[in-house]
């Protein structure tokens, strides 16, 4: 039976010759991820699985990033709980703040912990990011994380798929963020519910790895179980450069069945923004009207990589952030921060009047480092603009690319980077 790329990876990890959409399987895991919010709950659930030790000390990654560096005493306690568990269990991939740490989904690929063909679960919905590397990866809850840590396997319902055919080439200042926002606008926040988003077509070659990470990262915002890219020379070069394990390359069968096909022509794409309070409320920035803003956030697991900071710095260089705007730049990892420093990007941001933060998820989920007051508006390169996501329930988030965010910071209102 013909299978999608996702189905082939699931079949291989379930020890089956084939799987079909809707089937319930138990599958072996190559990596189990948790952060400072979800891991303490998983540690609480862990004893219920009847094991003393984790299944494999090298296949678990624990990352303090959401409320770390610790935002308050309770957050500090959660980080301490995770740290103690990591030490007691001898977890090899525990990443301490400042010690080559960062936002989990930017960090794991950078550390070479995920390779093509892997099956990864993470107790964080944006775990789908690693689909950019040709892996099956999906977000789960803390009980699943506990199950994965104890047994090295968990259950899955095999998803059907939507095929996204990409052709053409981006215009200047248009990027992966515009593509994924456009796609979510097209199919809706539940448009790919319980399905894979499988990207295909000649247009993919021109997408940088950072574009692909951004796109796969937001597959969940269309309700998808995972987003996945075929493995090409760029993927293989990335994996090699980051010391990842030997990749296993799976390709969708030519006659694989898709529940739907969607076409995206990169030549037609323009800078796109998602209005409050759903990622599907997309408009072209050019047609968005005048939206005065109070804050800009450039960072997160969606857009805090070096390519994102370069795109933002290229727009901001030689300009000043509008006097009414706080612009917060958050390199996603320690390594991104260092690269940005060496390239002079941090200086460009600071000179322009941005504040540059340590790596953290911080404001993206309304944790700290940029909470919004009642009535405030923010352009953010993050992934969700739900009610109250970044602060007060009457604040507003406009999701956009780093280029749009940078242009908006300078203009003091939602702005098209071309202008």
């Amino acid at each position, binding site marked *: 039976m013909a299978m999608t790329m996702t189905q082939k990876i699931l079949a291989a990890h379930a020890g089956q010759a084939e799987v079909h959409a809707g089937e319930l399987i138990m599958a072996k895991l190559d990596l189990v991820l948790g952060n400072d919010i979800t891991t303490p709950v998983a540690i609480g659930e862990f004893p219920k699985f009847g094991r003393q030790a984790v299944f494999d000390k090298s296949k678990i990654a624990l990352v303090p990033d959401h409320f770390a560096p610790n935002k308050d005493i309770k957050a500090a306690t*959660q980080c301490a709980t995770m740290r103690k568990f990591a030490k007691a269990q001898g977890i090899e991939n525990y990443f301490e703040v400042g010690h080559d740490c960062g936002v989990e989904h930017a960090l794991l690929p950078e550390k070479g912990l995920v390779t093509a063909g892997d099956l990864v679960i993470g107790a964080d919905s944006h775990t789908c990011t690693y689909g950019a590397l040709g892996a099956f990866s999906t977000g789960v809850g803390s009980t699943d994380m506990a199950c994965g840590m104890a047994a090295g396997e968990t259950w899955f319902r095999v998803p059907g798929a939507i095929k996204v055919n990409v052709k053409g080439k981006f215009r200047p200042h248009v990027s992966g963020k515009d593509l994924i926002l456009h796609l979510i606008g097209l199919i809706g926040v539940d448009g790919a519910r319980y399905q894979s988003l499988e990207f295909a077509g000649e247009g993919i070659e021109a997408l940088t790895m950072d574009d692909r990470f951004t796109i796969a990262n937001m597959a*969940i915002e269309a309700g998808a179980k995972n987003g996945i890219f075929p493995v090409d020379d760029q993927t293989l070069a990335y994996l090699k450069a980051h010391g990842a394990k030997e990749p296993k390359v799976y390709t969708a069968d030519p006659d694989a069945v898709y529940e739907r096909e969607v076409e995206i022509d990169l030549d037609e794409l323009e800078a796109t923004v998602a209005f409050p309070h759903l990622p599907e409320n997309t408009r072209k920035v050019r047609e968005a009207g005048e939206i005065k803003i109070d804050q800009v956030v450039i960072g997160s697991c969606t857009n805090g990589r070096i390519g994102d900071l370069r795109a933002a710095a290229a727009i901001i260089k030689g300009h000043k952030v509008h006097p009414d705007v706080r612009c917060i730049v958050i390199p996603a990892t320690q390594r991104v921060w260092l690269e940005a420093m060496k390239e002079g990007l941090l200086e460009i941001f600071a000179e322009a009047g941005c504040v540059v933060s340590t790596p953290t998820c911080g404001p993206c989920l309304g944790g700290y480092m940029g909470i919004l007051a009642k009535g405030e508006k923010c352009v953010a390169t993050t992934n969700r603009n739900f009610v109250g996501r970044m602060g007060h329930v009457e604040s507003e988030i406009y999701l956009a690319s780093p280029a749009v965010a940078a242009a908006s910071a300078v203009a003091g209102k939602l702005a098209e980077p071309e202008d």
Partner: protein
Amino acid sequence: MKANGSVFKYGDNVDTDVIIPARYLNTPDMQELAKHCMEDIDAGFAQRVKPGDILVAGKNFGCGSSREHAPASIKAAGIACVIAATFARIFYRNALNIGLPILECPAAAQAIRAGDKVEVDFETGVITDAISGDKFQAEPFPPFMQDLIAAGGLGAYMQRRAQA
């Protein structure tokens, strides 16, 4: 097993950020989190909800974050069952894994109104609205999920499986 309670009704795409805002996620204590459950969509929910009450919503309930704190705080608040037209997938599996009863039933999700008294029969999947008199048939769970629910959650299920 049956649930019997008053209905709290919400619309489409209720996300996990409004079910339990991240600003409270600096604790894993679900009883503490239950005090803030649904706060950003319905500020009085935690005060008004009674043990056994039923939450009814539209499509894509629980979209967004993977935080298990969302179904766990709903459960800790006393909700006996969530009925929705559809569920977002991570919320769906989290609810099953922790033993929060959920039912998919678009017709019930549309017809049942806030404040209605509703009875849910988990054996048959029949939902009865005592106010309107309407009966609805929810989608039955596949056998694996029935086993998971019967075991009382994923931990117990996996232990039984290892011994089998």
